[in-house]
């Protein structure tokens, strides 16, 4: 029976009341008395040398407070990169400087050149237009392979080339993989593009820098997924402000999808300028600015080869990927095509030998970093596409080929460094076949055909590594951060609870789901628990939310802290009940002595903790507040199987998604409704990638998709009603809740299903098509049908 509260209940999202009634407190809602506004003058060329910047006319314009250029940041640190990748030859990656405002050169359209601070946003913008900038335009590099040619213009003059790193994984396996390919009975090869995406959270980025001369304290309000990380990076590496003088607040945040993880120039600028001017400085991104300054996602060009033996067992896998870094290294950019991608190449399959090569390349484009799934969608897409292609080449059923190669023994150590703790891939595939009604496909195919439409079916699996991550492991892999999480459980005198979490909610529903866990553990009502997050002054140092880590890591910290609370509360209860601590049981918010009818209520105990009149003061401190830090011992490995049915209009190439089913194994589930919602959103973004989205540059580095007129976002009418199921559960073995994470699954698992389905539809019609690159827009599908 479905529960109506606690772990497993579909409690309604309490935060939605304020979001839906306009009572949210977003960064743009924050206005500091007397604040000024900044407008960034951004480069309109992709690559150029700054010859001169003349701000004299602009500075004299009404309302202008001060104009800053790169020179003002000469003594200030650049934006740091949080992950250092070591290349195939044991050398560190090439790491260019990333100034807050351009110094010497501009390197992508949107690169900030100058910043005008004025009394109003309009005055700042007017003055920015009056700045005279002379730029000597240089040839731009846009295409990654061209960027690596010997005579390519260099994005960074002080680096040896446009190659950030050439990474091999596992380098020691390279020869063994080559040998396996020599011996293979069959090799399937596929070249594909995982196109560049723009995250497009509904709320654009905003930063408000404030400074108090009275306390010498800086405050940054910002649209961030991880305020403590911003405080550390900006305080320690950019501006040199110690943590006790720097507060970072990320209030309600309207979607992040990864792009709000990173430390951005505008945040550093507003904090810096507020100190310089002793006046708050606010920046609100326009949507146009977002397209050219928010970190983009994906942008991989890949060749993948799969070797099979005569019995269709996968024997080896080899990939070569070019990964676009853009013009600078965004905060976690180097980790995405390497440790978040190469380690997932085994997928759900027992391929014994794998070699992944990744060349990360600088180009004159917006920096690329993590976007929903980050590396794992890229891994899943190529693997699940090549398996489908192999099945066709071999004339075998694509589901059967997958099943034959499934990993079935757990724990399972992959040849790409990670060890899956649990999973049951046959069970999720069985569930998928049931909920997708694959048995009914032929009938639906006939029905489509009768309407002149080409129907196709695409199925795929996915595996992801979530709950990032064991700090000591990621440290060895180059992370310059720890990836634990923290929680403070503060029980108030009357028994209500504030949980200060280092996780950050920007749509995920933590304010609902986290209390379900704490309330369930204590047997009290969910409404007695409130979540506090997003403010370095109010929460213990935490690492924030990304990589589907909040419940697995942040939730675990909260469970640990709550267990400490329970332990102490039992001691207090034992004292009140004059019983032995070992005999105290906690159930439904009552502490009782086992085997008796003696009990005290939760509220009696919490009151005793703060009004310690009858309290073992000689043994215990008063109060009931505990903090815990949790560092996971492994990643979690959610997995699933997805099925998509499409119809293709043979006359126009237009693809419509008719059915989509997702069977996921997320381990234990705290709030099934929220989990379904996360899957729905992920599917929308994955289907969006497959059919609609794609950022495009011309050969001069001009962004062709700089607005919604040309960047196609998925709308409700582009999407079918989904069938989602998460009843297959193999709980995570190493965190206390047995949870795995669900935030990215939909975006990771769905693109290959869609593309497999379209290829299937076209092949059934006799088209000799093996692949079409995303987005599968009508014109691309039509061109493919014409043999182009």
């Amino acid at each position, binding site marked *: 029976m479905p529960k109506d509260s606690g772990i497993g209940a579909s409690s309604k999202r309490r935060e939605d009341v304020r979001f839906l009634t306009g009572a949210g407190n977003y960064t743009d809602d924050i206005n500091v008395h007397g604040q000024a506004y900044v407008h960034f003058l951004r480069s309109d060329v992709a690559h150029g040398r700054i010859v001169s910047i003349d701000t004299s006319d602009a500075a004299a314009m009404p309302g202008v407070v001060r104009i800053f250029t790169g020179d003002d940041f000469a003594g200030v640190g650049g934006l740091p990169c949080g992950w250092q990748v070591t290349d195939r030859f044991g050398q560190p990656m090439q790491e260019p400087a990333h100034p807050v405002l351009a110094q010497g050169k501009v390197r992508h359209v949107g690169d900030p050149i100058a910043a005008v601070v004025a009394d109003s946003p*309009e005055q700042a*913008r007017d003055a920015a*237009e009056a700045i005279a900038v002379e730029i000597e335009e240089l040839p731009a590099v846009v295409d990654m392979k061209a960027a690596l040619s010997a005579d390519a213009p260099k994005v960074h003059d002080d680096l040896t080339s446009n190659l950030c790193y050439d990474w091999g994984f596992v380098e020691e396996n390279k020869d063994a993989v080559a040998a396996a390919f020599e011996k293979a009975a069959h090799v399937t090869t596929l070249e594909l593009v995982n196109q560049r995406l723009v995250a497009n959270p509904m709320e654009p980025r905003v930063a408000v820098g404030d400074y108090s001369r009275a306390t010498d304290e800086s405050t940054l309000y910002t649209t961030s997924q991880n305020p403590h990380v911003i405080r550390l990076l900006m305080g320690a590496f950019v501006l040199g402000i110690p943590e006790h003088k720097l507060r970072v607040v990320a209030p309600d945040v309207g979607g992040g999808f990864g792009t709000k993880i990173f430390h951005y120039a505008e945040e550093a600028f507003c904090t810096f300028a507020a100190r310089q001017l002793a006046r708050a400085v606010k920046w609100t991104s326009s949507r*146009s600015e977002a397209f050219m300054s928010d970190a983009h996602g994906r942008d991989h060009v890949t060749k993948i080869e799969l070797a099979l033996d005569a019995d269709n067992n996968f024997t080896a896998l080899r990939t070569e990927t070019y990964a676009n870094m853009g013009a600078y290294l965004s905060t976690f950019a180097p980790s995405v095509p390497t440790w978040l991608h190469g380690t997932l190449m085994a997928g759900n399959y027992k391929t014994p030998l794998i070699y992944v090569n990744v060349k990360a390349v600088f180009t004159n484009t917006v920096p690329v970093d993590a976007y929903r799934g980050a590396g794992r969608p890229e891994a899943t897409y190529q693997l699940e596409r090549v398996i489908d292609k192999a099945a066709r080449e071999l004339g075998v059923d694509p589901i059967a080929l997958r099943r034959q190669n499934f990993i079935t023994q757990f724990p399972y150590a992959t040849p790409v460094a990670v060890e899956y703790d649990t999973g049951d891939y046959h069970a999720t595939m069985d569930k998928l076949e049931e909920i997708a009604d694959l048995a009914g496909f032929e009938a639906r195919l006939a029905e489509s055909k009768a309407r002149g439409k080409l129907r196709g079916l695409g199925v795929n699996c996915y595996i992801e590594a979530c709950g990032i991550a064991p700090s000591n492991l990621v440290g060895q892999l180059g992370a310059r951060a720890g990836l634990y999480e923290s929680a403070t459980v503060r029980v108030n005198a009357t028994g209500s609870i504030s949980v200060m979490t280092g996780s950050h909610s920007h749509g995920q529903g933590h304010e609902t789901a986290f209390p379900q866990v704490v309330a369930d553990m204590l047997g009290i009502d969910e409404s007695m628990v409130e979540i506090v997050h997003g403010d370095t002054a109010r929460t213990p140092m935490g690492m924030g939310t990304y990589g589907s880590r909040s419940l697995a890591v942040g939730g675990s910290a909260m469970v640990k802290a709550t267990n400490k609370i329970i332990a102490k509360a039992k001691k207090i209860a034992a004292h009140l009940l004059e019983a032995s601590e070992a005999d105290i049981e906690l159930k439904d918010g009552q502490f009782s002595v086992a085997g008796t009818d003696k009990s005290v209520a939760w509220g009696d105990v919490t009151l005793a903790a703060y009004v310690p009149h009858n309290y073992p003061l000689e043994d215990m401190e008063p109060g009931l507040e505990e903090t815990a830090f949790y560092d996971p011992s492994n990643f979690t490995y959610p997995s699933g199987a997805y099925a998509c049915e499409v119809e293709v209009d043979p*006359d*126009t190439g*237009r693809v419509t998604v008719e059915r989509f089913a997702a069977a996921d194994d997320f381990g234990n589930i705290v709030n099934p409704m929220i989990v379904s919602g996360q899957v729905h959103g992920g599917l929308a973004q994955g289907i969006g990638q497959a*059919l*609609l989205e794609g950022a*495009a540059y011309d050969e001069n580095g001009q962004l*062709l*998709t700089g607005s*919604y*007129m*040309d*960047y*196609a*976002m998925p709308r409700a009418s582009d999407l079918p009603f989904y069938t989602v199921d998460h009843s297959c559960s193999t709980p995570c073995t190493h965190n206390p809740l047995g949870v795995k994470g669900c935030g990215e699954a939909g975006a990771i698992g769905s693109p290959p299903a869609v593309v497999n389905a379209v290829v299937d539809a076209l092949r059934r019609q006799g088209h000799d098509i093996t692949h079409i690159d995303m*987005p599968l*827009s*009508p*014109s691309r599908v*039509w*061109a493919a049908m014409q043999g182009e």
Partner: protein
Amino acid sequence: MYAFDFEKPSTIAEAVAALKDEDAQALSGGQTLLPTLKQRLASPSKLVSLGGIAEMQGICHNDAGQICIGAATPHARVAAEVAGDYPALAALAGGIGDPAVRNRGTIGGSLANNDPSACYPSAALASGAVIVTNARQIAADEYFQGMFATALDEGEIITEVRFPVPQSAAYVKFEQPASRFALVGVFVARFADGVRVAVTGASENGVFRWAEAEAALSANFAADALDGLSLPADGMIADLHGSAAYRAHLVAVLTKRAVANAS
């Protein structure tokens, strides 16, 4: 936006007078003009709102049996009020943008702007509509003069659009995936004296009539009368969303569908 003055006259004559100022510009629904202003791509000294002029609002029939639509009538009203008399035109209006756009955007603004991907120009051209301005009446065949170009003079305002009603008609729009404007749109209108076919979205010269299709359909108003007819890719728009050849192909596909759907 840059600063501008604002006037809201209540008669056409006042509006015409107000537009005589240098760099003054008419504002109707603002669905095209306001985004342009926000991007600072235009800097009119003064906006003259046409929204307060009663004589430019609403829909009626004249003695010639034409549907007369006030130029400041929003798309949503056209969608609702001509559904019985001219369902193809109502459907076109109802398929523009989203509810907010349809409740603000106007037929006059759309025709004055003459975006090469806009819907209304195809209806006006296929219907042989008359564009009435403060100064004259312009036949649709003379009115559209290429991308964003029309026969309107400086300061001239469209006050009304008169649509002859065909025996049957249909508009088929193939949406550009991002903007949902017409990647290609075809309006087919069958009159007693012949069929008119107008194509939007496809050509670098804006909306145009497809003469071969008109001839074929005038002889035999059936989708298969178009078999074998095609347009050259030359002169078609090519962009991220479709090649010239794709657009040329879509014109033929959509024209057949429009004939099949005509009612």
